[in-house]
Structure formats: structure tokens, C-alpha cells
């Protein structure tokens, strides 16, 4: 194996676009790819083009009625269905919605296949991570659930045990619901509590149902959690789950909307969090899964300052390159600052004292630790 990590990507991904004013903007993907190239972190032979997922495979997760609705929305610009969550404010329709979404799913599936076949150790599909999509409904900017389809694929073809790790600031409700009754998929979601934030679910007591009881974990975190508490919590929970579940492969969702600058959330993480999470997952992959690790993207709504850096850190970690102290190339900043409404950051690191200290910090840390104890049945 000479290629350790591969990136699954196609410029067609940029057409997964809900419109200029919509927060889920594919420009972030373009900027990230461009940053990787400017920083010489990726070779052309590390980029693999995805295939469209077959409708048969798609139907292992999504109902035929829903797939048909997405197809109809692909060709009818006036299509609206609240039943299927299409044509709504969150998930407006765009042309070729079915094909583009199928390509993203195909990317995550192919990434999983390459990892299982030993073509690479780790694989990344940044357009994936559409974790709010349900089997019969689009929700929260997500049409098809790429992680869920890839998990079904891994089950059918390899009979694998899968751990799904979700560190997006929003609860991974779609993936959880699809595998709620499945004891061979462990889903774990770290997210800002639903007190204020979408989708409102992801309570500690959601632990799966029936056969799957005990195979869903939810760690809801307080607003203003910040790096230290967030990383402490993740470090407390993940190794324990790996030790007891013994997965064959990891699928990790890498939403980077927990960052302080993110306009939709209130977790106050800094860029350090997005360097540390991949490091931990990477370690766990080698300790427990023979390195088998599929990483996918997710949320991230400060597309100019946060997403390209966070996802470059992820890719760098997958390739065992430390870029945490790097400058961002001037060429890249000059190119993208033309359209950016804000200054692009000069370094990978966040500026010191990016925000005022949070006065309730001890209280918040304490509450989060208590949550962890409850989740792990230690309180």
C-alpha cells in the first residue's frame, strides 16, 4: 500500500448548491481543495473521482417514494413537498438534485470500499456528512444520507461492525434514526444541546431501541463549551466505546460548525479542536481498526475563515503532516479574498484572545462532565 490516504472528489460536488444566500455553500469545498493544492498537501494521484451510487443501494436507506420525489424535484423547479422536506427554506431544490446528491453518496460509498479493499488506509469525502437526511425526508440541508448508505454497503458487502462518530455541532439525528435498532452500528454524536439549537434532539437518554438499545450514544454539550471541555469530553467517551464495541471501521463526520466564528451555533471551539479531533480518531483507527477510517465533511458555515482551515487540518492529519503552525499561502489568500466579505486568516492558528472569556466556564465544564458520567453510566 503506497497511498495511505485518498480524497474522493469531483468538481460536480460544487453543484450541491441551494442558492447564493443559503448558509450551506459549496464554495467552502472549492476553497479547501484549493488550499490543499496551494499548501502542496495533495498530489493529483491522491484524488479519486466518485461514481453515482446505484439506486438499489440508495434504496437500502431511503424509501422509493422519497427517491422518486427527489428525482421529480431535480427536473421541476417549482416542486415543493413538506412531506419530503423538499423545496423548503432549509432544503430548496436545485437542478439535478438527485444526480448530484447521488454522486456525493457514491463518493462516501467508494471511499468505504477503497478502505475495506486496502486500496488506502484512510479516505476522505468532504462533500459527505449529510447527517440530517432521514430515510423518508430531507432535512437541515441534507438530501441523501451518504454515511447511512455507506454503512449499509459495508454491512452487506463486508458484514462489518461500524462506529459512526459525529462531531458536528448539530445532532446527527438522521444517521441515528436509520440505525436506531441495529446493534452492529454504534452511533455517537457530540453536539450542542437542542435547548436552542436545531434539531432539538440528541438527549442523553436516546440510546437506541429494541436490538439496538445501547448502540446509540448522545453527548449534548452546553452552549459556550469551548475547546478544553469539548476535547475532554470526546477523550473520555470515544476510547471507552472503541474498547467495548470493537468496530472494524470508523466513519467520522467532521462538521466544523462548533467553531466560535460559526454563525449558527454557540459552542465557542477554536481551530485547535479541529486539529485535535482528527488526531484522536486517527489514533483510535490504528489502535482498534487496523487504520480503517473513512472521514466525511458536514456542517461549517463560516466558509471563509473556518472551513478551509479545519478540513485542511483533517486531511493533513490523515497524511501525518503537521500544519498547525503553518501560514496560509499568500497566493491562496489573494485569490479568494476578492470575493470574501471578511479578511482571510493569515495562519492555521486562530488569533489569541479571539473572544472574551466566558464567565460561566467552571459551571459549563462541570455540567459537561456530569453529562459524560451519565452517558457512560458512571453517575
Amino acid at each position, binding site marked *: 500500500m503506497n497511498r495511505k490516504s485518498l480524497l474522493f472528489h469531483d468538481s460536480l460536488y460544487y453543484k450541491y448548491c441551494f442558492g447564493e444566500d443559503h448558509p450551506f455553500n459549496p464554495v467552502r469545498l472549492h476553497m479547501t481543495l484549493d488550499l490543499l493544492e496551494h499548501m502542496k498537501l495533495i498530489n493529483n494521484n491522491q484524488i479519486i473521482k466518485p461514481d453515482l451510487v446505484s439506486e438499489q443501494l440508495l434504496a437500502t436507506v431511503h424509501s422509493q417514494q422519497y427517491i422518486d420525489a427527489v428525482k421529480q424535484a431535480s427536473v421541476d423547479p417549482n416542486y415543493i413537498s413538506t412531506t419530503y422536506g423538499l423545496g*423548503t*427554506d*432549509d432544503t430548496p431544490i436545485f437542478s439535478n438534485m438527485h444526480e448530484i446528491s447521488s454522486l456525493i453518496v457514491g463518493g462516501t460509498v467508494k471511499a468505504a470500499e477503497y478502505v475495506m479493499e486496502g486500496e488506502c488506509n484512510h479516505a476522505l469525502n468532504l462533500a459527505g456528512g449529510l447527517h*440530517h437526511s432521514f430515510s423518508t425526508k430531507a432535512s437541515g*440541508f441534507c438530501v441523501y444520507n451518504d454515511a447511512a448508505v455507506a454503512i449499509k454497503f459495508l454491512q452487506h458487502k463486508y458484514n462489518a461492525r461500524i462506529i459512526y462518530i459525529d462531531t458536528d455541532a448539530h445532532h446527527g439525528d438522521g444517521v441515528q434514526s436509520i440505525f436506531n435498532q441495529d446493534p452492529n452500528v454504534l452511533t455517537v454524536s457530540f453536539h450542542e444541546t437542542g*435547548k*436552542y439549537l*436545531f434539531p*432539538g434532539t440528541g438527549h442523553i437518554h436516546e440510546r437506541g431501541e429494541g436490538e439496538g438499545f445501547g448502540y446509540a450514544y448522545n453527548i449534548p454539550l452546553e452552549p459556550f463549551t469551548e475547546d478544553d471541555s469539548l476535547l475532554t469530553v470526546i477523550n473520555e467517551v470515544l476510547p471507552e466505546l472503541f474498547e467495548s464495541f470493537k468496530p472494524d471501521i470508523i466513519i467520522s463526520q467532521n462538521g466544523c460548525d462548533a467553531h466560535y466564528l460559526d*454563525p449558527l451555533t454557540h459552542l465557542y471551539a477554536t481551530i485547535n479542536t479541529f486539529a485535535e479531533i482528527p488526531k484522536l480518531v486517527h489514533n483510535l483507527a490504528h489502535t482498534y481498526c487496523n487504520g480503517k477510517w473513512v472521514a466525511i465533511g458536514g456542517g461549517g458555515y463560516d466558509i471563509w475563515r473556518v472551513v478551509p482551515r479545519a478540513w485542511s487540518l483533517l486531511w493533513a492529519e490523515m497524511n501525518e503532516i503537521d500544519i498547525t503552525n503553518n501560514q496560509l499561502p499568500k497566493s491562496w489568500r489573494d485569490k479568494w479574498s476578492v470575493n470574501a466579505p471578511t479578511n482571510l486568516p493569515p495562519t492555521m492558528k486562530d488569533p489569541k484572545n479571539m473572544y472574551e472569556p466566558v464567565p460561566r466556564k467552571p459551571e459549563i465544564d462541570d455540567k459537561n462532565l456530569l453529562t459524560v458520567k451519565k452517558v457512560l453510566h458512571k453517575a
Partner: protein
Amino acid sequence: MLVDEIMKREVITVNPEDSLATALLIIKKHRIRHLPVVENNILVGIVSDRDLRDVCPSRLVNEDQDDLLQNTKIKDIMNSNVITAHPLDFVEDAASVFYEFRIGCLPVIQKGKLVGIVTESDVLHTLVELMGVNQPSSHIEVEVIDEPGVLADVATILRDLKVNVTSIYLKPSANKNNKALVLRVQTMDPRRICTEIQKAGYPVKGPLGLS
């Protein structure tokens, strides 16, 4: 919402002639705390788990207690002055009866017959369903003046933005002249909604005001 919509229709009961031992077995088996006492379909009394335990001999006494448990009849220990509800009562009325009389259950009587039972837990569950999250949505809390028309104002903003509301309630605010209007809206990005509501003069409470 009516008691009829939330009551349990299959009521587990005892007969006045049943023994204490029988009643204890029933509440243990069904994991319930209240037993209506029924004779010929007519409610004649009620016993709670506490009533039953109060008359049980101490476990610390090492003597054979079987006789006592077998010979004590429910009719001798039951409370025959029972507070009841009707299927057409409002759930909030049932809730205020629980609160006022500090009781845990209400047998539901219609035309003299026992037709159901509603417990504190049933009411609590109703509340959980009313205030909980049944669809992916965001939470918005608006501070409004307690006067006519404000709800319509806020509702108009939501209509104009074409946002679906999945749940809504008003609760008392810390400021006596105000109310807190709590909404769940079906969107992942509530920024525009919050901005418009603020612009209309109603403060939106963010997570900073959580504590």
C-alpha cells in the same frame, strides 16, 4: 385536551373482599401505585401503594405474617371518599386537582361506571409531548408585552418568512408585564427569523440568557 384523550381505559382494580396480599401482588406485578376498588362495576374506594404498605407488618419482625396479609380485607383499609374525574374534563383541570389535593391519580367515572384512570405520570407525559421536539426544529424564545395583538405580530413575521411552526407556548416572564413566547420552528438557520422579530421590537432570548 380532554381527559378522555389521555386516560388509560384498561383499569386494574381490586374487589373490596380481596385480601391485602392479593392487592400487594397486583401492584407489584403491574408496577402501579393506585388501585381503584370496584364492586359490580361501581367504584367504592381506592387504595394506594402507601396505604397498603402502611398496614403491612414490619419486615423487621421475624414472625410469620401470612395470616395477617391474607385476613386483612381491602374494604377495611380503603379510602372510600374518592376524588374522581369525568372523560370530558380538561387535562389542565385534572392537573390542578392533582396539585391542589396532592394526590397521584384520578379514577374516571362516566354514568356511575369506572371507565378509565388518569395518573400524574400521564399528565406529565402529555406535557412532555406538548413541549418536546417531535420534528427537527430550532428553539426561539421571544419576550413580548402581555397585551392583545403581539402574537399576531410575531405570527405575521413567521408567515411572511414562510416558516413552519412545530410547537408554541406562552409562559410567564420574569418581568410581570411580559410573557415569554416559546416557539419551535422548522429550520436549521433561524437567524433571519430572529432578526426580523427583533426588528419588530421584540427581544429574542439567546443562549447567553440561559442561566
